[in-house]
């Protein structure tokens, strides 16, 4: 059963008097529990696609069904609710709040979800344990290594038990060793049934997924299973 179903997604950006066509008709089907890598040259529209299927942005035209629900026409606050409940994001540059501890960062989505304060810490701590950062829970991002920061970001993405985990170049700022650690974490999550979509430039990273979608000039150019 498909969790993500898009039809002919088009996204235009007005830049001055010109129009940039970032996506030019993307139709895509992703099933629950799949581990998908999206590849493509810089500027091909990967992040734009992720923003739309991650409900951070709306398409100029085309439709998008998430969990069989048409979300392409929802307003800002309705999308915020979906992002909070259904989607977890991991970014290349971590995007942690610098003045908050790891624990506070992980608790943030729970706060926006309106979870009881008494439960927030317990739930967040549980997820921090699952990424092996228990001993760093009360440290600020500046006191953590890049790999640790990215693990905090992953814990934050998972804390609301999202349907889909999105990662835009999660290993882009990491050395290959810590990058591997992060990918192992993803592989384990996938084994537990988590739907994961990873954007990457690196073929080694993409090869850890089950399926690779290649994008070029705002269109799907290739969509293939990874042979293991």
């Amino acid at each position, binding site marked *: 059963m498909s969790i993500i179903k898009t039809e002919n997604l088009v996204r235009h950006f007005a830049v001055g008097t010109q129009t940039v066509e970032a996506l030019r008709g993307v139709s895509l089907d992703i099933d629950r529990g799949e581990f998908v890598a999206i590849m493509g040259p810089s500027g091909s529209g990967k*992040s734009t696609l992720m*923003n739309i299927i*991650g409900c*951070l*942005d709306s398409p100029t035209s085309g439709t998008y069904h998430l969990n069989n629900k048409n979300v392409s026409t929802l307003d*800002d*606050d309705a999308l*915020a*609710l979906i*992002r*909070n*409940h259904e989607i977890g*994001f991991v*970014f290349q540059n971590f*995007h942690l*709040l610098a*003045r*908050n501890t790891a624990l506070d960062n992980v608790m*943030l*989505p729970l*706060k*926006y*979800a*309106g979870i009881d*304060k008494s439960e927030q810490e317990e739930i967040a701590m549980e997820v921090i344990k699952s990424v092996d950062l228990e001993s760093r829970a009360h440290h600020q991002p500046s006191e953590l290594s890049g790999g640790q920061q990215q693990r905090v970001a992953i814990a*934050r993405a998972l804390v*609301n038990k999202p349907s889909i985990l999105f990662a835009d170049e999660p290993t882009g700022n990491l050395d290959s060793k810590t990058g591997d650690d992060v990918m192992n974490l993803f592989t384990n999550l996938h084994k537990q049934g988590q739907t994961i979509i990873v954007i990457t430039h690196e073929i080694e990273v993409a090869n850890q997924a089950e399926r690779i979608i290649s994008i070029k000039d705002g269109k799907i150019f290739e969509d293939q299973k990874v042979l293991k």
Partner: protein
Amino acid sequence: MLVQESIGTAVDAIKANKLRSILTTLAIIIGTAAVIAMVAMGSSAQQALNDSITDLGARTIYVYPSSSRQGATNTSKVPLDIKDAIALSKDGEIPWQIAPEIRGSKQVKFKSENASLQIVGSTPDFFSIRGYELDSGKTFTENDSLARKRVVVLGSKVANELKTSSRALLNNEILINNISFKVIGTIKEEGAGWGPNPDEQIYTPLYTASDRIFGRETIGSINVNFPVEYSTEEVMIAIERILRREHDIGPGEINNFSIRDWGQALDLQRQATSIFFALIIGIASISLLVGGIGVMNIMLVSVTERTREIGLRKALGATQNTILLQFIIEAITLCLIGGFIGVILGTSIYFLIAFLQEWPIVFPLTAIIGSVTFSAMVGLFFGIWPARRAAKLDPAISLRYE
């Protein structure tokens, strides 16, 4: 719960930019401090005035000389005379107490110390009319006055002026105009109120003053103290009738003296002070508004600086209202911090001045509550626009923002 979280975030953000935050709130600090200091000083002044009425009892009326402008020739001030006071005393219609005042500044000497002090000549009733209490010794009598005895009663700070103590002066001689006078009593500290400071004056019998010190029969004012059963108007009419007769004022001519009661004087004084304070508070409010604009400016900067943070919060599920609330709370917190510093500053300034001026201290609670509330409202008002900007940011674009 989100409010609590937002306050925490706000305090963190302010801490991260301490200097900038303090500079931003400077106008708010100054505005709040000014409002509080001014309002408190106003209540102190009011309190001092009220104290002075209760000291005197509301039942004293004053008669002063005033110039009669009848005809072109007579424009000089027609003085009040001891005879006027006697005429009032002799009239039996109202059982009032009459205390004429003859006063002037004279050189006073004790041993080698010299000071220029106010000498007040009056009747023994003067002390009870004014509510002055004896501290040591005794006051003078009617007979002392008739005998022109050289005796004086001192205000509590006179000894200070002569660099000695009241105790050392009691029963000793001091020189006024090089004539020696015996100190027979001292009065308790009264505190400065409305008019000359009673603690820095020397009191002597009426005729002693007119014959031996001033060499004149003209007096500065007459205190008329009357029982509460009589109304102020009634008493004023009686005084007017007697003095018009004494001064030979014909029908249709206007009075060459003026009769005033404390109520009138106080009302005038109150009016003058309230206009002054309204002005200061107006200026302080402008300062608060300027502060508000400063806060708005810094909040706009903050929203721009934290675009990526806002984008991230939205990506994690913050709604527009959540972001709106966060930034409004931040603006209010900023203003409240300024408000609290202003409260501390303003109250300290006030306490210091009140202490130095020996004013009665009135804790400016209303002013504190008022100005803190006002500064929160400034934060709310000037925080809304930047907060709306933050709330409306597009999450996808904000996350890309460098």
